[in-house]
């Protein structure tokens, strides 16, 4: 029983907050356009289920495409930066500068270059999420022990063999750590782009709902983004456990 309580603590807190929220709305007669009650949000979510499904699928699609491009480009850049000091010196400062630009400020430019709708959402999701992947892959490559490098050089291993057999597997835990950060960033990117320039997606839906004071629908959007984001995060964790379980089993069972 005690164990059950420990495990469900987070759920109990979340449910209590929902109940307090619901009761406050009822007791203090808070107007719906300021703070809708959870029951009202549930009702609206069900009422607009088709629209929400359509727009959330759009957001999910642009996010995943942007995320996948970020993985490919991130790994390629990370390997380049991590395995060549010359590329590191010439590219890394530039990447850091680029990363310090708030991506939201760049979205209008992306819209000018790529139009409105799906493409800028994908591009924004990519631009905002590839940097942590680059940094982590480069760090992972640098973490290979110098002794291991010496052992391999003496064996006559080629650069490719070193990369394939030692450096890349060694980098995988770093890669997955960065993917968990990158996927949540990718959602931010696609939703921001949709709120600025799109006729589809949760971002667009929330923007148009708030302009009509359908605040309950805005909350539905927030909740759905949260659910999608958590689901993708969980998926990354699942793949991570399968691929690099060895990195997290450091104590004897």
């Amino acid at each position: 029983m005690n164990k059950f309580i420990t495990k469900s603590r987070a759920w109990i807190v979340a449910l209590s907050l929902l109940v307090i929220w619901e009761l406050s709305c009822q007791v203090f007669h808070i107007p719906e356009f300021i703070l809708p009650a959870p029951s009202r949000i549930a009702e609206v979510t069900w009422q607009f289920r088709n629209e929400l499904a359509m727009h959330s699928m759009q957001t999910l699609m642009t996010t995943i495409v942007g995320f996948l491009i970020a993985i490919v480009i991130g790994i390629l850049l990370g390997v380049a930066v991590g395995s060549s000091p010359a590329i590191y010196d010439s590219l890394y400062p530039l990447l850091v500068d680029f990363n310090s630009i708030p991506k939201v400020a760049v979205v209008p430019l992306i819209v000018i270059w790529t139009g409105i709708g799906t493409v800028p959402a994908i591009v924004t999701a990519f631009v905002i999420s590839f940097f942590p992947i680059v940094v982590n892959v480069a760090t992972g490559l640098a973490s290979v022990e110098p002794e291991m490098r010496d052992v391999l050089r003496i064996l006559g291993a080629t650069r490719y063999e070193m990369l394939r057999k030692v450096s890349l597997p060694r980098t995988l835990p770093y890669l997955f750590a960065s993917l968990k950060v990158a996927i949540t960033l990718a959602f931010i990117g696609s939703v921001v782009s949709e709120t600025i320039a799109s006729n589809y997606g949760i971002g667009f839906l929330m923007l148009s709902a708030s302009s009509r004071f359908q605040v309950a629908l805005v909350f539905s959007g927030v909740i759905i983004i949260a659910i999608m984001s958590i689901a993708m995060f969980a998926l990354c964790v699942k793949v991570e456990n399968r691929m690099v379980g060895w990195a997290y089993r450091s104590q004897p069972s």
Partner: protein
Amino acid sequence: MLLKDAPTRSDVRSPPADQPMVRMSEVSLKYGDMLALGDATLDIAEGEFVAVVGPSGCGKSTLMKLVTGLLPPTSGTIEFDRKIVDGPVRGAGMAFQNATLLPWRTTTDNVMLPLEIVAPYKHQTGKNRAALEAKVQSLLDLVGLGDFGDRLPWQLSGGMQQRANLCRAIVHEPKLLMLDEPFAALDAFTKEDLWQVLQDLWMRQRFTGILVTHDLREAVYLADTVYVMSNRPGRIVHRCPIPLSRPRRPETTFDPIYTDLVNDLRARIAAVRSVK
């Protein structure tokens, strides 16, 4: 203070072997302005097991990197297997204090790694994998890891990891094995077990071995010849052949010849340490 019989360079050189496996001729290495190794001259015969001892920071590890071509010498020449060393030598084996096993590979697969890289075996890993696995297994049996082939490194103790590390260093039957303080992090009992293991491996494969260590008992136990290096800049100041018969056993450590040799080396190291 200098020992009365402080050696000159000529009597440091070992008796001329016809075709030594490793020949260093007046090799020096400078890091910037700092001389790390000065005029090292030595011959190591094929199949000879050599230990290099000296105070810490005397350039023992530098010597090892030079022989394997990982570092180019500032002056002098190094020959390995009758060829001048001008880049990383191919197919030598190496083991360090840190076992550096790959954490995602089982013990067997870790020991298999050199076979996937070094020439004749590399092309057999596909069709002839069973034979290579049998080879690895017999090696693991020899070092007492026979039942641990499918374990991951984190499931092994430090001593077991170091056994696997030794197997990985010699599985491809290298002509030269370089050991850089491989047992320094182990407890005394495990350490002496591994001396035995290393001697067994050496007697089986008769590779040429260079062991860098600061443990004099270890050096005398394992080596045919012990070289003593001086404080920085490292110079080889003494050559000490070890006349103990093989195989050496734990009882050997109580042999007066053994203890005398260890004490003599200790005195020499104390002498070079006090020279500033």
